[in-house]
């Protein structure tokens, strides 16, 4: 099949698009799920991001303000 005589190698070849399809099916089926974010989480995110920006600035040699 597909010019690949070894079933073991053929399996790998087919698992590649199969995996991509699985990813697409999973993402599509969960498209609108698990999107709720609490106010507390938002606040934690802001703290997290502030520090993340500081790290980026440190890496480029700026003293964080």
């Amino acid at each position, binding site marked *: 099949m597909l010019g690949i005589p070894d079933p073991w190698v053929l399996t790998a*070849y087919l698992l590649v698009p199969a995996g991509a399809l699985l990813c697409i099916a999973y993402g599509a089926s969960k498209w609108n799920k698990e999107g709720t974010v609490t106010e507390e989480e938002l606040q934690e995110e802001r703290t997290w991001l502030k520090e993340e920006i500081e790290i980026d600035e440190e*890496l480029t040699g700026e003293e964080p303000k």
Partner: protein
Amino acid sequence: MNLFLLTVVIIIYLAVVSYLGYQGYRNTKSSLDYNVAGRNIHPYIMAMSYGATFISTSAIVGFGGTAAQFGLSLLWLTACNIWIGIFIAFVFFGKRTRRMGLNLDAHTFPEFLGKRLRSVFVQRFMGIIIFLTMPLYIAAVLIGASRIMEGLLRIDYNLAVVLFTILVAAYVIFGGLKGVMYTDALQGSLMFIGMVVLLIAVYFSLGGITPSHSALTSLASQIPEGLRKIGMTGWTQSPVPGSPLFWILYSSLVLGVGVGVLAQPQLIVRYMTVKSNQELNRAVIIGGAFIMAMTGTAFIVGALSNVYFVNTYGKIALATVGGNVDTVIPKFIADFMPSWFGYLFMLVILSAAMSTLSSQFHALGTSIGRDVYGTTLKGQDKSKAWEILVTKLGIVIGLIITVYLAYHLGESVIARATSIFFGLMASCFLAPYAASLYWKRLTRKGAISGMMAGFIVSLFAFLFLHISESKVFGVAKLIFGRDSLLSGSAVFIDPLVFALPVSVATTVLVSLLTEVEDPEYVEKCFKGI
């Protein structure tokens, strides 16, 4: 290839990338002022950033060349890249890492485990291991990019290394580590287009999917004697089970990199940039398609380049390039594709290299600056200026080691260097990391023991068992009078095969034998999970 035109194209490309990075950085920063949800990264950007960081010149040039040598069996690695590197990584590791990372306010992989386990030792130990070994992987990426420059521009390899290093240094110095996710998204998109064009062109020119594979199958009689001896039976056939090639292919390349991806410091931080699991779910779609187009194309094209080289030069790929597998893809692109594609591919390669390098240097800098030096400042008057200095110094030292390695590692080395790094990360950190996410019964002592066990077994295997490294180090020969304590094909079994199970067993056993240090704190870590 017209050097002037290429220089203009590269300058425009770098200008666009830098502008995008700066804008992305500014947007992120201003989002704080407007009280917008912080980690509001679009799933497309997150997935592309993860993908572009994951896939580098090592995967395209190094592993593509390895596929030219060993054949389509390497597609098992692509399958692992998608099933493990994307699906399992995002769904089973990503979601929990995102939530727990937020609970712990963690920004690096060492910090994540260090805070989860309430252990500064863990954070420092991980920081040191990452700092010391990351240059090997950075070198693999640098060598891949330099080989492409050598092949497409027909310049000396040593000059290519210098030119690319200058490019990287300039990128890092002029703020290239800021807003990387936005530039990653552009770079990932370029990589996607370039690789899809390449795959279609190759299949089309060789007469379609089945005829091209059949032509590859028919080349089995041309397998070099050296490869036949170690177990190769064909480019569309798996190696003889238990043969040296079987272990090299499946234990080092497929397992090492395929599983090792789960414990990559520069990838784990990407999960924390999205605001909810919904974004991760959506990112799975892009990630799966992206990886298929990346390593899928690289390995198929790499293997099929043999058909092209035999038709054109009467010799297989390896023979055409004189034995250095790292130069197969550059030679193939230069010969096979029209020159306009050479320009596009140069951008693809620049993108693949830059997106990975920026994250590698980010991980390298933070590992020494934040995770090692930063943790010594606790309770003292925190001088950020010193931390910045250590971070910058760390990046400079890392760059110097990388360039040294790029000159001295030799030929056909990209895939090996990458798999050593990936395997080592998994051997040391995967068990404690997975347990941290899923097992409240994990104890600090259990995690540290698992980490140390994985590290010690890996080190032992590199010095005394796995012949590719033990022969170079020479310690086994000095003490025992032989290159490896194992014999036969077993000398090719990757250290990961020994180290990971030992690390898992140690983590579980020691945890079960000890008490959870602070159950209340563990509950806090798992809040919202």
